[in-house]
């Protein structure tokens, strides 16, 4: 254990022990605070993982609490009543999340705002909804304040566990991929629509649990204040001040905002009433946090953790590994990694085909601009094929056509199967993986999680099932992790597995992206400017890796590459594009010697001096 972990564990333990000794009145306050913290953690699932803001979470909280009381009053035993509350909020939140399928960002915040107002005026003015006059019988084992508080803490622990599961399973990874690289994530097998709705559903379920805790605490609910717009804003304040994504920070903020005004009724010396000052101060703190401390209290905790870890050699080592890939015995690593190739596909190649990939008359047009105009080419199995051409020649657009990100006319057949019309996810399942010129991964996530993300199509169990660890999902995840480990070793990245991607140098990020694509178990690998941002030695080493991928793993590669010596060294065949049309093809030496290629791609000056300058 690193010192920061020890410090964190001791602090949390001390806080729980102290809170248990706090006395009955304070315990009852703390139950309410815990419920608020749970609701804020639910809101944070949306904010941190999907980048969307909901201003309707107080309404969800109300729907949960009222449903639990209603169900309890009608004679449902408490676990069933609690479940009813969770189901009701899950449903409400999913409905409120429907607009996210069509619109994004700021407008969604406004639609949730409209939902909050609707819930206040339409739902919460009805006696049959608000459970007016009804009571929920608290079960015998929860009669005491200590018992209720412990119950609330167990709910909190459950939510923290759920958040942890979200961080390490398919669902959470998909949320972030949809947030950062929505279109590209489909190439990993992520489905943006269901992923968005699942995020709302999970967020709603957590808030429903918070509502249940409130209902159990109060028994019957008369005041609607905790479910109005002001409370929605306060939940946002707690998440932002606490630091979106940080459970510890959010818990601290919840205590500051909710418990402080009730526990300290008067601030000494200045004689200000805390219950009046704290709300204003927390609003000011919210503005301050957004401007000056976007990572919130959680960011402060992380900084403290890093500072503490400097005192231990192990902590120091883990905090700052060498950010470059380390040297690998390529042949040995590739033999190890050959199991990456054994993936189950629903489609197995039946008859021999001439080429792995055959493009016929491919045409891509954006409005009036024709980006690719009737390109026909083929990629034979087990070759490294170079795609060269000047900027804007249509090379990346061709990759987008193959992976299904742009509308195409013509025909693209992969292993004899027509790709045109197939979804990007289906293409990845057929055996195509790719990298992007400007990164298609999630910078905020760790290297390992990104490599796992790229294998989403391999995890057959639905995201919700894997979140709960049911069925085959446990086996799936273990399998994916083993594959991720192999891919990282193959590229000499295993010492960086827990670093977040955005902290690494650009060149390393590119290698991570290739490792992720290889981990997805493709037959055909499309690499878009893999060596951009690499130094000469790193480029050379990457060229050796291409050859190892072809020879040891039996992959077929198409590489978009500007570095002509590398193309000449590793490629078996080269196509040259100009203005969306094919102008040359053949062996690297043939193609780079053609005058038209030199003029178009290598440039006039290179033609004058009789060869490539790089």
């Amino acid at each position, binding site marked *: 254990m690193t010192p920061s972990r020890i410090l964190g564990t001791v602090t949390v333990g001390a806080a729980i022990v102290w809170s248990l000794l706090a006395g009955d009145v304070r315990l009852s306050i703390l139950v309410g605070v815990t419920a608020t913290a749970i609701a804020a953690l639910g809101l944070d699932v949306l904010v941190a993982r999907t980048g969307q803001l909901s201003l309707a979470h107080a309404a969800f909280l109300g729907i949960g609490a009222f449903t639990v009381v209603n169900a309890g009053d009608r004679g449902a035993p408490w676990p069933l009543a609690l479940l009813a509350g969770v189901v009701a909020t899950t449903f409400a939140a999913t409905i409120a999340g429907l607009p996210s399928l069509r619109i994004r960002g700021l407008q969604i915040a406004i639609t949730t705002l409209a939902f909050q107002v609707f819930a206040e005026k339409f739902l919460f003015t009805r006696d049959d909804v608000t459970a007016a006059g009804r009571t929920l019988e608290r079960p015998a084992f929860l009669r005491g304040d200590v018992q209720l508080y412990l119950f609330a803490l167990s709910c909190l622990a459950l939510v923290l566990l759920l958040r942890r599961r979200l961080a390490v399973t398919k669902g959470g990874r998909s949320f972030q991929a949809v947030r950062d690289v929505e279109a590209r994530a489909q190439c990993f097998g992520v489905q943006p629509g269901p992923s968005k709705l699942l995020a709302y559903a999970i967020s709603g379920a957590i808030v429903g649990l918070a509502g249940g805790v409130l209902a159990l605490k109060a028994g019957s609910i008369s005041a609607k204040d905790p479910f109005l717009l*002001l409370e929605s804003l306060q939940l*946002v304040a707690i998440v932002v001040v606490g630091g979106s994504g940080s459970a510890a920070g959010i818990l601290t903020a919840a205590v500051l905002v909710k418990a402080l005004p009730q526990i300290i009724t008067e601030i000494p010396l200045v004689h200000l009433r805390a219950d009046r000052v704290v709300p204003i101060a927390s609003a000011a703190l919210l503005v301050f946090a957004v*401007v000056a401390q976007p990572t919130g209290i959680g960011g402060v905790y992380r900084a403290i953790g890093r500072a503490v870890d400097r005192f231990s050699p192990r902590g120091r080592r883990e905090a700052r590994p060498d950010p470059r890939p380390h040297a690998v015995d390529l042949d040995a690593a590739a033999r190890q990694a050959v199991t990456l190739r054994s993936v189950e596909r629903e489609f197995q190649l039946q008859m021999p085909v001439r080429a792995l990939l055959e493009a016929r008359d491919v045409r891509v047009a954006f409005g009036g601009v024709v980006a690719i105009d009737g390109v026909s080419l083929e990629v034979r199995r087990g070759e490294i094929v170079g795609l060269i051409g000047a900027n804007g020649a249509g090379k990346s657009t061709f990759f987008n056509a193959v992976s299904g990100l742009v509308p195409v006319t013509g025909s693209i057949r992969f292993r004899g199967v027509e790709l045109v019309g197939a979804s990007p996810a289906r293409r990845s399942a057929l055996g195509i993986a790719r990298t992007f010129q400007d990164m298609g991964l999630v910078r905020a996530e760790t290297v390992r999680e990104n490599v796992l993300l790229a294998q989403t199509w391999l995890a057959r169990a639905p995201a919700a099932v894997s979140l709960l660890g049911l069925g085959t999902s446990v086996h799936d995840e273990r399998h994916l992790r083993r594959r991720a480990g192999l891919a990282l070793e193959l590229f000499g990245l295993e010492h960086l597995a827990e670093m977040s991607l955005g902290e690494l140098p650009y060149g390393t990020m590119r290698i991570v992206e290739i490792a992720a694509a290889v981990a997805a178990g493709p037959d055909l690998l499309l690499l878009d400017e893999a060596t951009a941002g690499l130094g000469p030695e790193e480029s050379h080493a990457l060229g050796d890796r291409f050859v190892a991928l072809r020879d040891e793993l039996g992959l077929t590669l198409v590489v978009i590459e500007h570095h002509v010596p590398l193309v000449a060294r590793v490629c078996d065949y080269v196509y040259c594009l100009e203005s969306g049309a094919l102008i040359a093809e053949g062996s690297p030496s043939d193609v780079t010697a053609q005058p038209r290629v030199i003029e178009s791609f290598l440039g006039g000056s290179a033609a004058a001096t009789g060869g490539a300058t790089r």
Partner: protein
Amino acid sequence: MIARIITGLSAGAAYAIVAVGVVLIFKGTKALSVAQGEIGAFGFFLGLRWADRGVPGLGWHVPRFATLLIAIVIGALVGAVLERTVMRRLVTRPPLDALIATLGIALFLALLEKEMFGTATQFAPSPVGEWKIELLGTSLTAPRVIAIVSVLIVAAAVWLFLNRTKFGLAVLATTGDPVVARVLGVPVNRVYRFTWVAAGALSGLAAALLGPAFGGLTPFDMTRFSLRALAGAVIGGLDSVWGAIVGCLAIGVLEGVVGGSVSTAGAPELAVLALVLATLLLRPRGLLGAEGAA
């Protein structure tokens, strides 16, 4: 029915004054401001206080009609201060950050108003006189008439400003691409400040008209009104002044008609939610919004 439509239009016109400010800020800074109602409310409450108890230190009671001016001036000042201290630091951040900051500002202002002026409804006599006009058998009070007239004037002025003046061109250039605009010599910081000052002033005007028209204001009331303004702006497309006005008028009329003919509590709110959802689902960029603006 006609009466409900006309009163609905007048309410929608008042929302639209706030919404024009929201659109201006969105055009200038790409921020969606939830604080746009509360800024004006602060000026409105301060004006009332100075009229009732006199300006602190001077002991001079502001005349009633001046509460309108005070609301506008204080609104503009608050806008300027917020822009300089908070919002300018957020222009390069993700748009959600600016939205959250304005939430904090709305919350802060409303709670501050509660502390300074209390939670009781602040009744205000009309700053534009106590007269009525008869229109198609409906009598409209002075603030409602002025709301309709002002939104027309404001919309025309904003349109002329954006499309016929050099500084308006600077605002539009900043909307397009702030970095390129700055490189081309557009005073981008002045554009940011201007949009917040103008929106603050409009918010003050709206508060001074809505207060008397709706029988007084309490803290948070203007935030509630500005939610309709935001919904109207979103319906209109966020970056279109005329779109926001059309959206707000539609919301005003919808609320008036549904509220008047359906007795179920919350029916107007349900109708507004349905209108917002239907518009965005059928036309994600809003009625008059530019492609890919938001």
